[in-house]
């Protein structure tokens, strides 16, 4: 047992934690007109946290602390990088949004930072308790952030729905975890995995209980990643929450849920793949199909993006689920494809949300009909939107194609009839999904603006321009030279080794 603490490996989390304290105390003492300093400090803190992360990544300091419950390896580092970047972008998107409506700025940034910290802890967790704490720290603050627009009844609805279903899912998840502990007598993933293998090999009496434990946990995670049929909270919450929070929900919080799901099923209960493989397969197929069909009918862009993100979650599950139904030895490859998809999705979805924020601010509505002819009113914004939405649709040479490509490659590689069927379902869904992304492009570019509509010559807030520019450049760059994203896949290699794959 080693209880030694490696402070360098913990430094990214420590920096974020210190920033949280700094924001909290600043908020106490700053007069109202200077409250915007809390935003500056928050952005600065997240940026600073990236420095030790890069130092650890560049060096070879990898650590396993607290008896292997908290691990800093390539996989965790890449995900922490993702959570920091997503958090950074969300903060930048929030700056002009929160300022413009006199919200409680200090508290807003405080909560967002807490959520970022939670997701970072979660990426390193290799035991049920740390994982649970990380996951709840990620989602807990979001219950409040979703209801930040107090005067708006839909924001209240968003918060309440998210809270009730979130707490319910937490309870179910916890129940599943406690049963798993009861069955295996361990909380640490490595130990659980050994116990599960023993049960699967020669203890048929315990198998039903183990299966039940896994199903409960899957339901809990299903809520977190809003996979169909556990997705009902998502569209209402997404629509009502402040748009930067929605962006965060659809990227970071979803990614956190996915990472929790993958680490648990891949590291803790891989032996029981025959239980959860088919369940993931069904989640993937249902999420893609149901969400895509529902998205076709949406008239509000944020709601549309909510369904789109559910469908994208389905696509993300495809490689891993395809691998899971064809056997344990394929899991590693499937996981790599899923992680690559997750990274690319995070990037282009954040870009799309930034563009939606600008467009909604300019036209005063998030209803698609109100955006008619935006291409003539603000061509630059409209070009950016086309880039992000067609990337989400997976049209080359934008980054999204590579995500879809890797998905198909992996699911076909895992072979078997079930994998092939999933590939065909995904292919049909890719076409359906294109239709509603193209519908946005159609309204913006092909329809005429209303009579006398003003044109927008000025640039939006500097922080948004920065977000849009970076996201667009990276979206195109990854699309043309996808090797850049290859290292995300390689980072999962350590997880594959950890699982003995």
């Amino acid at each position, binding site marked *: 047992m080693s209880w030694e603490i490696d402070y360098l490996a913990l430094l990214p989390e420590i920096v974020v934690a210190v920033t949280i304290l700094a924001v909290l105390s600043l908020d106490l003492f700053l007069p109202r007109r200077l409250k915007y300093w809390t935003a500056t400090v928050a952005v600065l803190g997240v940026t600073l946290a990236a420095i030790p992360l890069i130092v650890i990544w560049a060096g070879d300091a990898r650590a396993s602390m607290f008896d292997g419950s908290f691990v800093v390896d390539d996989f965790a580092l890449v995900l922490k990088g993702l959570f920091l970047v997503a958090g950074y972008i969300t903060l930048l998107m929030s700056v002009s949004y929160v300022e413009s409506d006199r919200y409680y700025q200090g508290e807003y940034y405080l909560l967002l930072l807490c959520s970022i910290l939670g997701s970072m802890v979660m990426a390193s967790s290799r035991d049920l308790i740390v994982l649970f704490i990380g996951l709840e720290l990620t989602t807990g603050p979001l219950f409040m952030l979703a209801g930040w627009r107090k005067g708006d009844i839909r924001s209240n609805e968003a918060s309440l729905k998210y809270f009730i279903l979130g707490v319910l899912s937490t309870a179910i998840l916890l129940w599943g975890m406690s049963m798993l502990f009861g069955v295996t007598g361990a909380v640490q993933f490595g130990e659980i995995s050994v116990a599960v293998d023993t049960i699967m090999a020669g203890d048929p009496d315990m198998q039903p209980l183990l299966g039940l434990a896994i199903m409960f946990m899957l339901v809990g995670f299903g809520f977190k990643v809003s996979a169909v049929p556990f997705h009902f909270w998502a569209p209402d919450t997404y629509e009502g929450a402040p748009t930067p929070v929605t962006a965060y929900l659809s990227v970071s919080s979803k990614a956190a849920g996915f990472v929790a799901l993958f680490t648990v099923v891949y590291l803790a209960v891989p032996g029981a793949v025959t239980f959860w493989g088919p369940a993931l397969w069904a989640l993937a197929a249902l999420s893609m199909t149901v969400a895509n069909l529902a998205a076709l009918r949406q008239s509000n862009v944020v709601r549309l993006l909510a369904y789109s993100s559910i469908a994208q979650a389905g696509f993300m599950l495809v490689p891993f689920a395809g691998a899971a139904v064809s056997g344990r030895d394929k899991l590693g490859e499937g996981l790599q494809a899923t992680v*690559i998809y997750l990274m690319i999705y995070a990037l282009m979805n954040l870009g799309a949300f930034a563009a939606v924020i600008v467009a909604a601010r300019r036209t005063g509505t998030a209803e698609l009909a109100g955006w008619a002819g935006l291409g*003539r009113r603000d061509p630059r914004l409209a070009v950016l939107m086309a880039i992000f939405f*067609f990337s989400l649709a997976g*049209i*080359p*040479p934008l980054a999204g*194609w*590579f995500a879809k*490509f*890797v998905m*198909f*490659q992996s699911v*076909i*590689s895992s*072979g078997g009839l079930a994998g092939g069927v999933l*590939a*065909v379902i995904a*292919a*049909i869904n*890719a*076409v359906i999904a*294109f*239709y509603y992304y*193209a*519908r946005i492009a*159609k309204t913006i*570019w*092909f329809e005429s603006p209303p009579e006398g509509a003003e044109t927008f010559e000025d640039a939006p807030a500097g922080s948004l321009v920065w977000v849009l520019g970076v996201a667009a450049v990276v979206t195109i760059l990854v699309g043309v*030279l*996808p*090797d850049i*994203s*290859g290292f995300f*896949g390689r980072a999962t290699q350590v997880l594959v080794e950890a699982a003995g794959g």
Partner: protein
Amino acid sequence: MDWFENGWGLSLIVFLPILGALAALAIPKERESTVKQWSMLVAVVTFGLSLIVAFGFDLGAAEQYQFETNVPWISAIGANYHVGVDGISLPLLVLSTFILVLAMIYSWNHWEEPRNPKAFLILMLILGTGMNGTFVALDLVLFFIFFEVVLLPMYFMIGIWGDKSMRQIPGFGKEMPTRLYASIKFFLFTLFGSAFMLLGFLALYFKSGEFGGRTFDIPTLAAHGAAGDFASWGIAGLVFGAMFLGFAVKVPMWPLHTWLPDAHTAAPTVGSVLLAAILLKLGSYGFIRIAIPVLPEAAKDWAPTIAILSVIGIIYGSLACLAQTDVKRLIAFSSVGHMGFVMLGIATLTDVGINASIIGMVAHGLITGLLFFLAGSMHHRYHTREMSRLGGNLKLMPRLGAILSFTAMASLGLPGLAGFWGEFMALLGAFNPLDGLSVGLFRGAMVAGAIGTVLTAGYMLFMLQKVNLGEPSEEWVGHEFHDVDRYEMTAWVPLIILIVVIGFYPKVVFGATTDAVVNMVDNAYAVDSTASLDVSGS
């Protein structure tokens, strides 16, 4: 010039247009003439480079890939940046760069609402990269990317500059602008096909792993195909079917053709020209370059199906033409028929048939491209394309009418003009298909195809009679029409010359293709078929 011959010349042809498009972004929208001159310069230089490739091409070794580059591209999935031309792709590459120049000349003073030449020219240049890239790509992933890159520019061209009229959508109770309906239909059909094509590519990739390493490399996969590696593969037929979906939608083959009449009719003139002249060829080229050499056995199983669908396409396209009242829609449907001949040639799996299909593609590109130019110019002047309102065109605009007559004759396959070779040789190929294919079925297809040529002549003459001959209707009395202007002339005369040259001397095309095609068929089916090739007029 080593770098050029080592393959970077081809890369320049592919990427110059898109780099030009990026540079054009920097030119202010108001300076229209600068944008036009710049785009024209880019297109002309690209065409010039493709001519350098054409003249530097060693015809003695047409079956080999030349100007080849092969460097690693995406190591994560094992895809390479592999480009090169052989005798099959060379004519299509030159056609593609050439048509782009002509399209730019034509658009010099023809802008459809809402104008915005800058955006339109940028889209044209991006389209150029996609088209050129598809013809030189020798890696499945690269091919797929370029195959898809053409979609977005064409989608925007149709959607923004397309037909403004309203139209009742079948199956929906509402009206919507034709251009919106046509653009999304075009995109969805193609995407549907290419999603399955991608699945097929991936299946090939993994299968090739059993024979010395997974690869997306087309020549390597074709070598596997020739060696019979895939012959005993249980799902080869399904994989071919997946690729068939992707390519057949693009060609388009009956019954996947329904996007074509809508897209062609709704697109702006230049869009229709590029669509007909180049984009349709991406599909039939895919069959020749990928599907047949890689999966020759599966191709043999599919050949009768392809032949039957082609013949239905020929007959159906011709009959549909007879029922049209809109000139542009008539030309669009004629494409279905002509591409039917191209596909019939491919389905025979013989060198004669495949040669026929390549020259058919080139000829169709020249002739139908010109027809769409003409239809666009007529619409520009009459503001209608209804044949019942037109008439006496030869009297109103003698030069335009004469060119229309000439092109219609070329389109119906008059001997001595380019359109003849594709149709004639495809029928000849169907008379004597590859050993093992049902001779009865293919001869039946030949007879049906021959009937199709008669129908083609029928609707073309019918169109000429309605539009060109007779007296102008009263509607146009007193109207002054300006005859063909110099931009139109500059764009059209090269096409006319080429139609005549290829008609009299098809070796312009066959010279490059024959060896490559014979080699391909020999490899795929291990037959000696050189003897039957003397019909090529050489």
